[in-house]
């Protein structure tokens, strides 16, 4: 298991892609992880599930455009250098 920094970057890119493709309406709502479900008041502790849903929604919002760019760069690099 010899990692290089490049493999770390690739793995990170794949993970962020995986989080970003979780569709809000078709998938997350059906398993109850939608962004507007279960917010439930301004309690003290948000709880792990709402933290996770917030995280997924924010990753999707923030990383949409940068992911397009980084994915294109990665595709070109993989095509050229294998």
């Amino acid at each position, binding site marked *: *298991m*010899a*990692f*290089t*920094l490049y*493999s*770390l970057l690739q793995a990170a890119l794949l993970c962020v892609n995986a989080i970003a493709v979780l569709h809000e309406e078709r998938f997350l709502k059906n398993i109850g992880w939608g962004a507007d479900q279960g917010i439930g008041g301004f*309690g*003290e*502790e*948000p*709880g*792990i599930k709402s*933290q*996770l849903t917030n*995280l997924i929604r924010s990753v999707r919002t923030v990383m949409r455009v940068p992911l397009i760019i980084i994915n294109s760069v990665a595709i070109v690099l993989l095509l050229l250098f294998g």
Partner: protein
Amino acid sequence: MAYHSGYGAHGSKHRARAAPDPPPLFDDTSGGYSSQPGGYPAPGADVAFNVNHLLGDPMANVAMAYGSSIASHGKDMVHKELHRFVSVNKLKYFFAVDTAYVAKKLGLLVFPYTHQNWEVQYSRDAPLPPRQDLNAPDLYIPTMAFITYVLLAGMALGIQKRFSPEVLGLCASTALVWVVMEVLALLLGIYLATVRSDLSTFHLLAYSGYKYVGMILSVLTGLLFGSDGYYVALAWTSSSLMYFIVSLGSRLLRWGRSWGRGSPSGLQLLLSSRCALCEQQPWAPTVWGAQLPGSVSSST
């Protein structure tokens, strides 16, 4: 000679900047290198900043002034960007160590069981630097331990005649990747469990780096005493590191935590994740294949 040096002046602009030679008392006719353009205005006229007045060429002066202003501007920009990402003052706090602190901390990492007082001391709301407080985290020991571990791994491989220079780089990047993944996992855990504490990223980096001390000791013992010594030292160092981190972590997290509904579970989650990460420590040396004389090789 005057127009010849006038011709050569254009080429000498570049050459004079690159390699200024001492002002010749006579015209140098070898190969057309004439650095002293006789046909041009007097050298040394209004040179603002430079000692070599033999760049009497005003164009060269202007070019050099422009270049140095661009260089300083670039340096300022780099500093500003660096300050935006890495606050250098906070980083300096972690490197304010001295020899006594390092010695005591290393002893604490190996044998934390008799240490009584684990609280980090504060002075007027700012934590004391490591020089004055044994419980404060520092980044000096993890950095040095990381580098020592990479070198030691190279030496261990060399003893088994499996060394090549690329292995050093590979081992260094592998270990770095493990540290980064561990810090990211810890950050994710802290975010999910909404444990509010004053644990910054550098604290997490420091705690992740402390395990390299244990790994160094294990590898050294393994080199000296064979694979039995390796496993004994591994067990000892991982248990003491676990005790160390749990003691420190429980003090730190309890201090900054908000007493909400889900907080005890958050604390449990974090401590258990820390224990799990300490268990990861034994796998790291075997993973990249630091094999000891007399033990079976598993992976590469």
